């Protein structure tokens, strides 16, 4: 796969250079398409509100100001408190981190069972879990609210973690199952003969093998949970609202004065953790996918 360019080199210097140029131009055009909204958001966040009101929305700022960023982080009103996104940021961390960890671990265990310890009906259980990925979340809001109330988790962070874990299980199980299915079953057999049990085999042999797929799952789950609004708004109460609810409160005012620059800055701030995860772990993401998760 890596030697594709060798052929190009053989087919002559000039046309090779031309081809490379076309390639880079194409990649550049697509990069523009992907960057366009980010450009709009960034430039808007650096403008003053007056400039937005009078000028074109899609243009470079005349005077760059970081006021909007400051406001979004620590001054924008998300209710009667005007402390910006800051307090909500930690709620999101408190929700996302345990939820990602638990759902990933459970997904790994489930995938390990379904792929390597097949028993009668395991495939049916797996299909039922997979179908669970597709349920529209709007459907589950009301019965879930009742259930959380009965469990005594209504409005709490553990309640939100619980919801995210439950509805993340389908995908995490799918990821790990598809990864573990490519690992020969003989590995488990060998370990069994060596005397290792179910958990020992998981911890000593499968978990150390799973770094790539863990990265994939964590990226996926973190993105989903961090960006979740629907569950966040429905199952939180004052003090446990995640950052997306705060972002929404800043952005989505119906009859108030709109501060687009703050909105955009807030949106970028709210997305920073996920962006960071993508930038840092993007390479492993591709590698993890390569390593097997896509071999449905």
């Amino acid at each position, binding site marked *: 796969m890596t030697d594709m360019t060798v052929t190009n080199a053989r087919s002559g210097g000039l046309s090779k250079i031309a081809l490379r140029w076309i390639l880079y131009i194409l990649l550049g055009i697509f990069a523009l398409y992907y960057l366009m909204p980010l450009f709009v958001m960034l430039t808007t966040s650096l403008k003053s509100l007056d400039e937005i009101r009078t000028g074109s929305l899609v243009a470079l700022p005349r005077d760059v100001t970081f006021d909007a960023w400051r406001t979004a982080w620590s001054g924008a009103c998300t209710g009667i408190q005007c402390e910006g996104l800051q307090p909500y940021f930690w709620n999101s961390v408190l929700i996302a981190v345990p939820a990602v960890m638990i759902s990933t671990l459970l997904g790994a265990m489930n995938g390990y069972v379904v792929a390597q310890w097949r028993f009668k009906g395991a495939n049916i259980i797996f299909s039922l879990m997979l179908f669970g990925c597709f349920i529209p979340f709007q459907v589950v809001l009301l019965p879930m609210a009742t259930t959380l109330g009965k469990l005594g988790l209504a409005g709490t962070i553990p309640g939100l973690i619980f919801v995210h874990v439950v509805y993340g299980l389908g995908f995490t199980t799918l990821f790990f199952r598809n990864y573990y299915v490519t690992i*020969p079953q*003989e*590995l488990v*057999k*060998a*370990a*069994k*003969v*060596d*005397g*290792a*049990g179910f958990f*020992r085999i998981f911890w*000593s*042999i499968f978990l*150390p*093998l799973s770094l790539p797929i863990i990265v994939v799952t964590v990226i996926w789950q973190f993105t989903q949970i961090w960006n979740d609004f629907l569950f966040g708004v429905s199952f939180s109460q004052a003090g446990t609202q995640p950052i997306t609810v705060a972002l929404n409160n800043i952005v989505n005012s119906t009859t108030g004065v709109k501060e687009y620059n703050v909105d955009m800055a807030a949106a970028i701030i709210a997305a920073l953790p996920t962006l960071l995860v993508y930038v840092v772990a993007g390479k492993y993401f591709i590698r993890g996918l390569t390593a097997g998760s896509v071999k449905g």
Partner: protein
Amino acid sequence: MAPILDIKNLKKNYGSTEILKDINVSIEPGDFLVLVGPSGCGKSTLLNCIAGLEPITGGSISIAGQDMTEVSPKDRNIAMVFQSYALYPTMSVAKNITFGMKVRGVDQATQDKKLQEVAAQLQIEQLLNRRPGQLSGGQRQRVAMGRALVRDPALFLFDEPLSNLDAKLRVEMRTEIKKLHQNLNASMVYVTHDQIEAMTLATKIVVMKGGVIQQIGSPAEIYNRPANLFVADFMGSPAMNLIPAKTRANGGATEIVIDRPAAEPLVLKDTQNANLPADVILGLRPEDIAEAGYRSGDNVQTADCMVEMVEPAGADTYVVSHLGGKQVTARLHAETTATPGAALPMAFDLSKVSYFAPETGARLN
């Protein structure tokens, strides 16, 4: 001596499909049992059942005199080498070998000692810190063996351990396994689909097909006196010639009549076997057909045969002719003058002949 492995009336079903039907095998300590058969014959399943990796539907398995039918693999006192070697990819070679001991709580000093012993035995001392991914196929094979050896079990199980190696290495490793068996005087069960491996390694062979044991015996028994057409055809390369023929009694002897194209039928006289049915399938190994004059004995018959093809193979030359509607291969000496299209007098050594019933395939003599 008590059998080291004793399998009685073993049955194994997947749902309503019968994978193994009424298997009865037992081996003595020091035996090298080879399970051989075409793919899908149930030989690997049988091995997995012995290891306890697959639950069985009926019957019993005992190892070293202990009933192990319901015992989990780790307590069966066995070690196993897998086709894909199943080395733990994230562990070093040393860790791979000592993992079992670590799980069982063997102390570090013993672990180290055994590791060194095994590594020396298999000449893999210099590989101990590598990962399986950095090893060649042959090296992985040795590590997998090391992992089994270090257990010092009552019974070794091998699941087609050589099938992923190239031809040369396979022969080398085969010898090595044989040597190991002799040195350790260990009991082994070995699964393969390669009948040469079976012949060279085994002290006892089980030929299987469709979940049923076709024959159990020493390599010589299996080779010389196959129990049925399947075993006859499966074991040996080139395969045994299986020629449809008619018989008629002639005094104390039996005359065997074989049709051939554009010539008189070939008539051979067997002086050792009588009371054969009218239709038989005559089985003769290629090496039991020689050029006239190169084979003599009580029951050797000579006849001219039309040569169709000559295949020199170095040490031997194979000659193919047409008898009874079948191609018949004879293994001649290398310097034969046989030429295609010409007749050649050939000697049929009927002292080694096998007769099979055409309908059932069962051995008649």
